[in-house]
């Protein structure tokens, strides 16, 4: 499988496609440069993300002060593994708000400038990212850290095996730690 082609064969994107990010350090830079990042974890999180990687993602969000929002009802599972600090909102409702420059965010401080997506069904995430690509305010960016290429994000990782992906996420965390 090519690294930077859509994971599902027929989901052909373009002309505006996600900027592929090969290096974890680059991803760390994108996250670090965001003023108000938010991490959005979809209903498939516990199906695709190993627990160690999940904890790395949570650590990343803490490193940059990003709020975590879970969608699709995975709240209980989060709490079961001892994670308490997160918000929840249905994915479509959240995406609808992310495109609204007037939205005040979960903390009342205004909308976000970087939405980091992980744990979504491929096509569902694909469509939400498409909606945000076309209708989000100027300056708003999306980053897909799924283990596959998501062409409608502003930035996306590439298709990789889960082990390699876990390692990649871990390196993002390390890179953010080094530059703190």
């Amino acid at each position, binding site marked *: 499988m090519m690294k930077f082609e859509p994971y599902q064969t027929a989901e052909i994107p373009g002309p505006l496609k996600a900027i592929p990010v090969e290096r974890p350090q680059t991803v760390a830079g994108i996250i670090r440069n965001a003023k108000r990042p938010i991490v959005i974890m979809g209903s498939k999180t516990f199906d695709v993300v190993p627990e160690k990687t999940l904890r790395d993602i949570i650590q990343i969000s803490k490193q940059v002060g990003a709020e975590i929002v879970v969608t699709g*009802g995975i709240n209980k599972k989060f709490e079961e593994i001892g994670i308490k600090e997160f918000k929840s909102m249905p994915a479509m409702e959240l995406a609808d708000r992310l495109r609204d420059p007037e939205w005040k965010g979960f903390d009342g401080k205004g909308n976000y400038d970087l939405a980091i997506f992980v744990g979504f069904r491929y096509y569902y995430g694909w469509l939400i990212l498409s909606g945000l690509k076309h209708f989000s305010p100027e300056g708003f960016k999306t980053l897909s850290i799924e283990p596959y290429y998501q062409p409608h994000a502003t930035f996306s990782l590439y298709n990789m095996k889960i082990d390699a992906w876990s390692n990649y996420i871990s390196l993002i965390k390390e890179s953010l730690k080094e530059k703190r």
Partner: protein
Amino acid sequence: MPRKSLTFKIGELKTDIATLKNLEISLGRVEEEWEEPLGPTPMPSITSLRRWDYKLLQRYKPFYLPFCDLCCLCTFGKCDLTKGKKGACGIKMDAQQSRIVLLACCIGAATHTGHAREIVEFLVERFGRDLPLDLGDQVDLEAPNIRLVTGIKPRTVGDLEDVLDYVEEQIAHLLASTHTGQEGDPIDFESKVFHAGMLDHVAMEVADIAQIAAFNFPKGDPNARLAQLGLGIVDINKPVILVIGHNVIPSIYIVDYLNETGLKDEVEVCGLCCTAHDITRYNDRAKIIGPISWELRFIRTGVPDVIVVDEQCIRTDVLDEAAKIHAPLIAASEKACRGLPDRTYDPVEEIVEDLVSGRQKGALILDMDKVGEVATKVAIRLAPERKKFKALPSTEEVIEEAKRCLQCGFCQKACPNSLPIPEAMAMAKEGDLSKLAELYDYCIACGRCESACPSKLNIITMMVKSSEKKVKNEIFKVRVGRGPILDTEIRDVGRSIVLGEIPGIIAFVGCANYADGGTELVEMAEEFLKRKYIVVASGCAAMTIGMYKNDEGKTLYELYPGNFDAGCLVNVGSCVSNPHISGAAIKIANIFAKRPLRANYMEIADYVLNRVGAVGIAWGAMSQKAASIASGFWRLGVPVIVGPHGAKYRRMLLGRKEKRENWYVYDARTGKKVYVGPVPEHLFYAAETKEEAMIMAAKLCMRANDTTKGRAIKLTHYIDLYKRFYGKMPDDIHLFVRRLADIPITMKDEILAELEKKGWKETEIPDPTLIEELVRVKEE
């Protein structure tokens, strides 16, 4: 205007120059007598209800999810519409998306309209225009959608021709507005989408009431009998005729031929998709195999001796699939000729010989009597010869086939649900078929994996073989589609629904494109049944609900009564039976609340939006028809939730609960504008999971008119589901509690604590309406 043709008949007229016999002269149409005065919008044009649509769309704004960055509908293009760019015609992405939605809904509405036209024409030809539309003595309001939209009260099948004339004209206008350079505003496109949906419900109603009346289908019978359902129900020792599609007429003529020739016990007739629903409404021996997802599976078993297709949801490669199992295909609709030779006017025996000998793989036959006779004769002749094809490959053959898997992963990339087929193949080649059997439960049997496979593996067949035990045990029961909701039932439950004491009506509709298998639908239906909602079903969803059994071997249809009442499960029937669901909401406004019905769309929709807690769940919606069915519900004020694949319909219609200014209504008693909270919060929503869908459905049942008792009941279900699935209280309760009396007693302390945190204050409960003219007394 409602009209009637004026016809003179003269038995014999002698003049100086000639003698005329049986002369019939039609002198156009005359006004019809109907006690109810005509409302403001008879046969509305594509803009007549625009004002209402704008009110809805002001609250429920489209959130577009483009499938494609481009427009490629004209030779100016392809045009790049990304990030605010305009196409060569000036169109922008939001308008382009709504334009595509409108195209989809026009396809859907046209499909049902074509279906309805075909049925009506056929019935007029066979039985005459005067065939009465008798839906039984407990259904006086026989055509709520038709009466509401057109102002026509149809009494005979012939009256339905006028209705279809109107619908066809409107669809032409809608389609025209999608042409390059016509409509360009997204909200106006959305208004037209609503119009297409409304027309669709009218057309479907035409089709269903015509066939109910003509073929004596159940007429709202809550105790309609149970039919057999599943892959395991077919007696393979008999010749098997498989019917597929949506237009039941060819199937009826097969059954009639079997009855007339005394062969009814000798031949199996089984169906797929809505034709199957409808043939069981006609005949007690017919059987349902399942929804469209079962098409490839069943054909691959080799069991059908002849396949008869009519129209709509049929695999377009059905001829190839039929040929693989050496079963001839008979196409019986002008709309789906499949490239077959037209044998309509050929002698039956010649056609039979050509099909039995294999000289021809199939035939197009547009004479329904002939379809019945040919299908039967071919099945009987071929069945003994075809015994050798009525078998799946052996386990050893499946294992050998799995060894040809290259582990390239193309199948998984092609699969709509990204099923781990390579993993299952790796296990299968080691002799373990368990993973393939597991995937059977989640596979929608679309066959995209097979098309992608470089080794040409028959993946669907391998899955079916690996699940052979399950397949043989697919023996279920489904209540036959009962058609309309009785007027008496509406009188009995109308008050409880409008006051909110029955927590809601949940309608499971649509196709079988499930993201995580059909059991999710059953779980949802059962949840709402246990909670005493009225659960209604139609089409493929109604089949899926019947495809699972409890520990005692009973399906939900055997466990719950078929009444339109709290805690009951109603199967209205096929796709074209959906207007009995929208019709029930309309009937509540008319029969229970005495609101004028005739050509009075806006008032009735306003009533439904503000008072009737109904929600559609189209968990596996796939088709353009599903899109237009949903849009008909939206205009009527009924929200629809779709499953994850439903996000591919390209846009949601979402409310913003925190925007207080969006949730005001008029109090019809005073004219004052009153805040009522986000009820219902959304009009169209694609949920990620079944849990999210159930919580959302319970929430969307809340309406501005709920009494305090009703709201307390609805809140109980919403909060209870939320807590069960999410483990905490929802954070938006303060938006739904209007008075302290709204608070469920069992949750009082918890809710009061939440309300205090949010600085909640009591609000009024108005007599809600969005329409200024419905205000009875205006404030000074």
